[in-house]
C-alpha cells in the first residue's frame, strides 16, 4: 500500500518543498538574542527509577531575557530525550516525567541555550526486584561423578526490566537425587549472580530454585546422568546351536552401570563384537534398555567357538565363548539326474537334504555342486535348497560327450552321482 502511494507522496513533498522555498524573511523582525556563557544544571544526584525529577537550569551571566528557550538533553545508555523550557528570572525549570526515568544507570544532563551550555550527571537507581526470579542452568545434563558441574545463573530485574543493584544476595537451592539439598547465597555482580552446581554420584533429576527474600520464580532443571560404564557380563540364549546360518541366538548383557552404580540411560549405544574360529569378525550394534543391551546373532556357517564382547568405545565386557556345532545337513543325501529334451536341459537334483532330526534343511540353505568333466576340468556352482531339494540345470549343448562325476555338499552332508553324455 505504501508503495502504491509513494508516487503521490513524492509529488506532494515536491510541492510542499517548493512552497516553503517561496517564503522570504521579514526584514522588520529584530535580530535574535543569542546567550553565551555557562549554565548551571541543578538537580538530585540520584533517584529511583520511575520517579519524576525536577531540574533547574540557571544562567550564570544573568543576561538571558525572559522567554529565552533552554534545551535539556538526558543522555542515557538507552538513548537520548530532550526537554524544552524558557528562562524566567534567569532560571528555567524542567520537569522530567516518570515515563522518562524508567531506565537505571547514569544519565548525563546537558543544558543548552544559544551558545551557552552546562552539564551534570544523574544516577537512576534500580527498583526492588520483581518476580519471576528465573534460574538458568547450563549445561543441563552433567555426569553424576561429583566432578562435573553446571552453572546456575540468575538475572533479577526490577519492575522496569532493569538489573537490580549490585550486591543484592540471592538464595539458590539445588535438590539433587537422593534428597540431597544444597543451598547457596551469592550476590549480584555485573548485573547477575552465578553459582557452580556440582553433580553428586547418583544419577537423576536435580531441581534448582532461586529467590530474593519474598520474590520467587520457576524452577530450573539439571539432569545428572550416568558416566561411562564399567565392565559387565554377557549371556547367550540358546547357548548351543548348529552352524546352519539360519537360527538365531539372543545375546544379552548384564545391567550396565557406571562406577557409582548408576544404570546406563536407555538408548546408549553398545556393540557386540564377535570373533570366529577362523578370525572372521562380526559387529552387532544395539542399545541399552533398562540398562541391558540385547541383540540377536545369526548362527554362522562354520562350526566352532566364537568369542563375544560387549563394547562401548574403550569399555569392554567380560568375554563370552559360544560354540556352534556342525550343520545344517549331516548325513549323506541322494543325487539324481533328469533330462528335459524339450528345453535341451540336464537337471541335477539333490535331495532330500535333511538336518539332525531328519527334517528338511532350512529353505535357502546354500548347496554347492562340483561337476568333474571327462577332460579333467571341473565346474563349481551353487543353488539354494527349496523344500529339502536343490536343482542345478545344465545346457546339454554345452556338455561334451563323456562321463561326468557330480559331488554335492550342504554343510557336512554330501551326495554323489555320475552321468554320461553320449557322442
Amino acid at each position: 500500500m505504501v508503495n502504491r502511494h509513494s508516487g503521490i507522496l513524492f509529488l506532494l513533498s515536491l510541492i510542499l518543498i517548493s512552497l516553503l522555498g517561496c517564503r522570504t524573511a521579514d526584514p522588520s523582525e529584530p535580530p535574535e538574542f543569542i546567550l553565551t556563557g555557562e549554565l548551571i544544571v541543578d538537580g538530585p544526584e540520584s533517584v529511583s527509577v520511575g520517579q519524576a525529577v525536577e531540574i533547574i537550569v540557571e544562567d550564570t551571566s544573568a543576561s538571558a531575557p525572559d522567554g529565552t528557550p533552554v534545551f535539556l538533553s538526558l543522555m542515557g545508555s538507552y538513548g537520548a530525550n530532550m526537554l524544552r523550557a524558557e528562562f524566567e528570572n534567569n532560571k528555567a525549570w524542567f520537569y522530567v516525567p516518570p515515563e522518562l526515568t524508567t531506565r537505571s544507570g547514569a544519565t548525563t544532563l546537558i543544558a543548552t541555550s544559544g551558545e551557552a551550555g552546562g552539564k551534570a550527571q544523574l544516577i537512576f537507581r534500580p527498583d526492588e526486584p520483581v518476580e519471576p526470579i528465573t534460574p538458568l542452568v547450563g549445561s543441563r545434563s552433567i555426569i553424576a561423578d561429583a566432578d562435573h558441574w553446571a552453572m546456575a545463573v540468575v538475572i533479577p530485574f526490577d519492575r522496569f526490566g532493569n538489573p537490580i543493584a549490585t550486591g543484592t544476595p540471592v538464595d539458590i537451592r539445588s535438590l539433587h537425587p537422593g534428597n540431597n539439598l544444597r543451598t547457596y547465597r551469592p550476590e549480584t555482580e555485573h548485573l547477575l549472580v552465578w553459582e557452580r552446581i556440582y553433580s553428586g554420584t547418583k544419577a537423576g533429576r536435580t531441581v534448582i530454585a532461586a529467590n530474593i527474600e519474598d520474590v520467587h520464580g520457576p524452577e530450573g532443571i539439571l539432569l545428572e546422568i550416568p558416566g561411562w560404564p564399567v565392565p559387565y557380563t554377557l549371556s547367550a540364549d540358546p547357548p548351543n546351536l548348529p552352524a546352519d546360518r539360519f537360527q538365531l541366538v539372543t545375546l544379552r548383557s548384564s545391567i550396565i552401570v557406571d562406577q557409582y552404580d548408576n544404570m546406563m540411560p536407555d538408548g546408549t549405544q553398545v556393540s557386540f563384537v564377535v570373533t570366529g574360529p577362523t578370525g572372521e569378525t562380526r559387529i552387532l550394534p544395539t542399545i541399552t534398555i533398562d540398562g541391558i543391551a540385547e541383540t540377536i546373532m545369526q548362527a554362522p556357517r562354520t562350526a566352532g567357538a566364537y568369542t563375544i564382547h560387549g563394547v562401548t568405545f574403550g569399555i569392554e565386557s567380560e568375554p563370552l565363548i559360544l560354540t556352534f556345532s556342525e550343520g545344517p545337513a549331516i548325513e549323506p543325501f541322494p543325487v539324481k539326474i533328469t533330462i528335459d529334451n524339450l528345453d535341451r536341459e540336464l537337471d541335477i537334483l539333490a535331495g532330500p537334504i535333511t538336518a539332525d532330526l531328519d527334517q528338511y534343511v532350512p529353505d535357502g540353505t546354500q548347496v554347492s555342486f562340483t561337476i568333474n568333466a571327462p577332460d579333467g576340468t571341473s565346474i563349481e556352482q551353487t543353488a539354494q535348497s527349496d523344500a529339502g531339494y536343490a536343482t542345478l540345470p545344465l545346457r546339454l549343448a554345452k556338455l561334451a560327450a563323456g562321463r561326468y562325476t557330480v559331488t554335492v555338499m550342504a554343510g557336512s552332508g554330501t551326495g554323489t552321482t555320475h552321468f554320461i553324455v553320449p557322442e
Partner: protein
Amino acid sequence: MNRFYQIQVKLGEFVAKQNPHLLIALIISLAYHGVLIPYTYSRTYDAFVHIFFGSHYAQSWFDPWSPRWYTGFTLTSYPPGSQQTIALLSNFVGLGYGFVIAQTFALLMCTIGIYRFSKLWVREEAAGYAALLFVFSSSITETVHVFGQLPTTFSLGFLLNAIPFAYRWMRDGNWSILLAAWIMNAATTAGHHVTTLFGAVFFVAPVMALAILEKLRQPLPDEPEERPTQVTKDNLKPLIMRRVRRITPVTARTGLYGVGMIIVLVIVVLPYWLWSRADPITQISIPHASRDSFLENTAAGLVFWVVPYGVSLLILPYVVYKGFTTKAWPLMLSWCLLFVLGTGGTTPIPRFLLRGAFDILTLDRFTFWATIILLPFAGEFVSSLRHGRFANYLQAQFGSFTWRTVQIGLVVSYVTASVLIANLTQFRRFQPPPIDIDPIVSFMEKDQHWRWRYLTLGFGDQVAWLSANMDANMIDGNYHSARRLPELTTTPVERLEGAKYSGIPGIGSLQQFLAVPDKYNLKFVFSNDPFYDPLLYFSGWHRLQRLENGIMVWEKGDIPPLPEVLPRKDIPNYQKIMWGTIPMFALFLGMGVMTSALWFDPLFYLCRFLGVFRLWGWVQHLWLRITPIRPVLLAAKYWHLLDQKLRDWSKLSESDSSPVVAWQAWWEWFENLPKPRPALPSAHQVRFALLLSIMLVSAGSGVYFYQQWVRDPIHLVETYYDDLDFRRLEEAYKRIDPASRPSYEQYLLELSVTNGLVASYGKLDSVIVTLIEQEENFVVVEAETVFVTALDYYVTTQIHELVKRDGAWFIMPDSVDVTIPPDQFYRRSGVDWYAAGRRRITTETTTFGDVLDRPEIQILSARLVWVDGRYSVVGELLNTDADPADITVAAYLYDEEGTEIVWYNAQQAMIHKILPKEVTPFRVDFEGVAGLTLAGEPAPVVFEPDAFYPIDLETAPFRFEVYGRALVTPYDLSRHVSIQNIAIRETAEQQFELSGELHNTGTAEATIPHLLLTYYDENNHVVWVDDFYIENSVRPQRTIPFTVQLTPRNEVETLIDQGDAYANILQEDVNLSADWLERIPLPEGSGYSSVRLSVHYFSGSGG
C-alpha cells in the same frame, strides 16, 4: 424501441463492413482458447512464473525487488507489461483468472493483428483465412496451452497491429499514423522487448522493404514521362535519379520510424537496459533442447519443429512458391531465415549466424515467428484451394471428389492437430500432478517457519504458484536469468528442484546446497519426489512430517534464521517510478489506438465543442509570432530544393522513350510451358485409387518393419527393462516365458520384495544388451544396466536366458530367493525420544525453557589429507552425552597468514544422527562450485551423481579447524543392521578387499544401507574415511552380502596431522589410545593399522 432499432442497424452495418472470416476467427478464438486456457494453464511450463511476477506487482507495484526467489532478485530483469496486467486483473478475479484473461486478450489481439498484417501481403480474403488459420495454428496452440508463454503472445498482438500503422506512415507520411505506430511499438516493448527487437528484423524490415519497393516502382505524378527501353550511358544517371527521387521520402520516413522505434524500445523498459548493463547475465547457459540437432534428439525435433509447423508442413512448397513469386518476397526471405534459425543445432548455420547468442536464445522462438509469417501465404493457399488455381488443378486432374476430400482432410487434420496439441499435457504430463499448496503455506506461516528459506523438490513449475501464494523465501526459483548465487549461475542447472531431469554437472548444485544449508539459511525442503530422499537423508536431513497433500517436509537442524534485514540491490527511485508507470501507460495508449475507431469521432466533436481546436490554433499562431526560426518551414524549403534538383536530374531526352517491356523473361517462359489437359472422369478414379494405395502401402510397410524390430530378442530385453523402469509391470510380465513364469500375482510379489537404492530410488539410465550364447530356440544375453540415483551411479550386470516359443522370444524367469526367516513372529523392544519442550501453546517466540540443551560431543581426532586430487578433513567424533545428537561438522582451512580459505560441511561420509556413546567418522570434502572445472569452462551437461568438483585453492592450506555442533534429536536412530563374516583379503592386483554380510535384526526394512570404513594409524588416529552405499535393501531377519575395495594407503597423503578441533565438551571423557575391539586389525601390507566398520541406513518407511 426506435433507438434500439437504430443501434441494431448501425451494428449490422458495422459488422457487414468487417471481414467475415476475421469475425468468425475472433468468436472461435474466444470460444476455443478462452474456454481451454483455464484448464490448461496450470499444466504449462511458464504460466505460473508470470503469475508469480504478477503476484509481486500486486503486492508492491513500485518496488521491483523480490526476496522470495534465489537470494533476492530484481524484476526489472523482465519487461512487466503482461505481468502488471495480471496484477491489475488479480484485484478483481484473482491471479489465476488474471492470467487467463490476459492470455485470451493477447490471442484476440493477435487474431486481429494477423489479419491486418496479412493484408499487407495478400488479398483481403486470404487475410481473413489467415486469421482463421491462426486460431487453430498448432504453434499458437503449443505456445499457449503447452508452454504457457504470455509475454510472447501479448507482445506479438501489439507488434502485428503496429506494423500496418508503420506501413501506412512509410507509404503516406501521416504523422498521426506514425504516432500510432510508435505507441504500438511501445506497448509491444512493454510486453516483451525481445519481440520488438527481433520483430524489427523479421517483421518490420520486410514491410520497410515493401514500402520502399512499391514507391520505387510507382512513378511520381510530376515525373518526366519518357520510358527508355534500354539503359544507356546517357540515360543511366536520369534513371537512377528518377528512382532515387521516388524513394527518398519513403526512405526518410522509414529512417525516422526506425529511430523512433529504437528510442521507444530504450525508454519504455529503460530500467531493464540499465540492469542488464550493470548486472549482465554472466552465467553458464542453460541447455535447451531447441539448440539440439533434431535428427539426433528427435523428441526435441517433434516438440520444437514438427508440432509448431504441424499440418502446414504439407503446404510449405506452395508457401515458398507463392512467397517468392509475389511482392511478398521480402517477407519470404525473412521466413527463410527464421526457418533456418529454428532448426537449432541440426545445421551449423544458426550457430554461425547467431554466434554467442546461440547458447543464450531459445531457438524455438524463431520457429514460432516463422509459423506466424507463414500464415498470410497459408491463407492464400486456402483461398486457392477453395476457388483458385489450385482448386481448378485438383478438380481437372483428380476430380471433384478428390478435391473435396483434400479440403475436408486438411481442415480435419488442422483442427484435430490443434485440439490434440492443446490437450497434449493431458496425454503426456510435463508437470507433476497438481499439488494442493494450502498445507505448505500453512506450514510456513506457523511457528515462524518463514524466518528460514525453503526448497521444493519435484514440484515442477508449480513452485512458482506456491511462491506466488506465500511470502516465505526460497533458495531456488523459476526464472533462471535472475539467479545470483555463483553456485547457480556457474552451472547449467535451470532449477534445483528438478535437478534430476536436466543437466547437473557432477554431484550438482543441489547436493552443495544440501551439504551447507546453514550458509543459505535453508531449513525446510518440501519433497514431492522420493528420488531425492536418499540424498537428503544421508546429507543429515530428517523427515519432519508428511503434510495433508502428501508432500514430505524435510528439516535440517541447527540452521540460523534469516537476518531481520535482507540485503537488496536497490535501483534509483526514478527507475522504480518509470517501471511502474511507463509500460502500463504504453499498454493503455496501445489499447487506445486499437479502439480509436470507437472514441475518435466523439472525442473530435467534443473537442470542437469545447473549443480545443480554436485554442490550439491560437497557440500555434502565438508560437509562430514569438519564434524567429520555423524549423518545419525551413525543412520543407530545403526538401523542395532537393526534390527540384532530383527532378531536374531525372529528365531524359524526348526521343529516349519506348513502351514498357517486361523484364522477367523467365516468367514468360514459365507461362508458355505446356499445361496439363483436364483428365477424364475414369482417370480421376484411377488417380484417387493410386493416391490411396500409396498411403496404405506406406502405412503397412511401417507397421511391418516395426513388428520385426519388436520381435528381436535383444530389443525384447531392452523393452523389458524399460517396462520395469516405468512400472509397466503387466507388459513386463508378458515378456516372461509363459511355460515357466509364476502367476502374475506371484511375479508382482517377487518384484515388491526387491527394494533398495537402485530398485526404489534409481532411474534406469541405459541398458546395453549383448548376445552371449545362441542356440536355435535358446539364447543367453548379458544386460548391463546403468541406474542413476541421487547418490551415485550403479552399474549392474544380469544374465538372461531367452527361449523361443511359437516364433516369439520370451525371457526365462529369474531364480528367486527362497530363504525364510527363522522366526515366524517376533518382537523387538526399542527406545523412543520426543522433544516436548516446556512450552505452552503460544504464538510467542521460543523461550529459554523450550530450548533443548546441546549434547556434549568430543572430536577424537582430525587430519587434513589429499586424496585423488581433493582436500579432505577426516576424523572421528563421539557423543559423550546421554541424549542422541544431530551432528554438524564443519572444517575451515587457513593459509599461513591465518586467512580463511574455504569452509565446508561433512555431508554423506558421516552418520549425522548418533546415539549416546556412539562414535561416527566424518569426512569433509572441500568442493568447488559444481559444474565449474579448474579451467573455468563449463562441464559437460549430463547428470553425474558421483562426480566431484575439487576446489581450486590459490594458496596451500597451512592449518585447519574442525567444529562440531550438536542438537538433541529424536530422528533416524535405528541401529538394527549388524555386520557379520567380515573378512579381508588381498586381491591379485595387490589391492585389499573387504567382504561381509549385512544382517537385519530389526522389524523394519533397511532400504539403503550405508557402510562407513574408518582407517586408523598405529596411534588410533583416523587416516581416511570411505563410505559405500549398498544397492540392495535388507529385509528383517535377512542377510545380504557386500564386498568393497579398501582405499590404498599410498593414495592418502597426510597434509596436516592434527588440526584444532572444537566441540562443546569441557573435559575429555575418553582416551583415544584405549583399545577398542571394533577396530579390526588390517594386514601390514595395507598400510593401515586397523579399520572400523559402521553402518546406518535409510528406511523408506521412516524411522
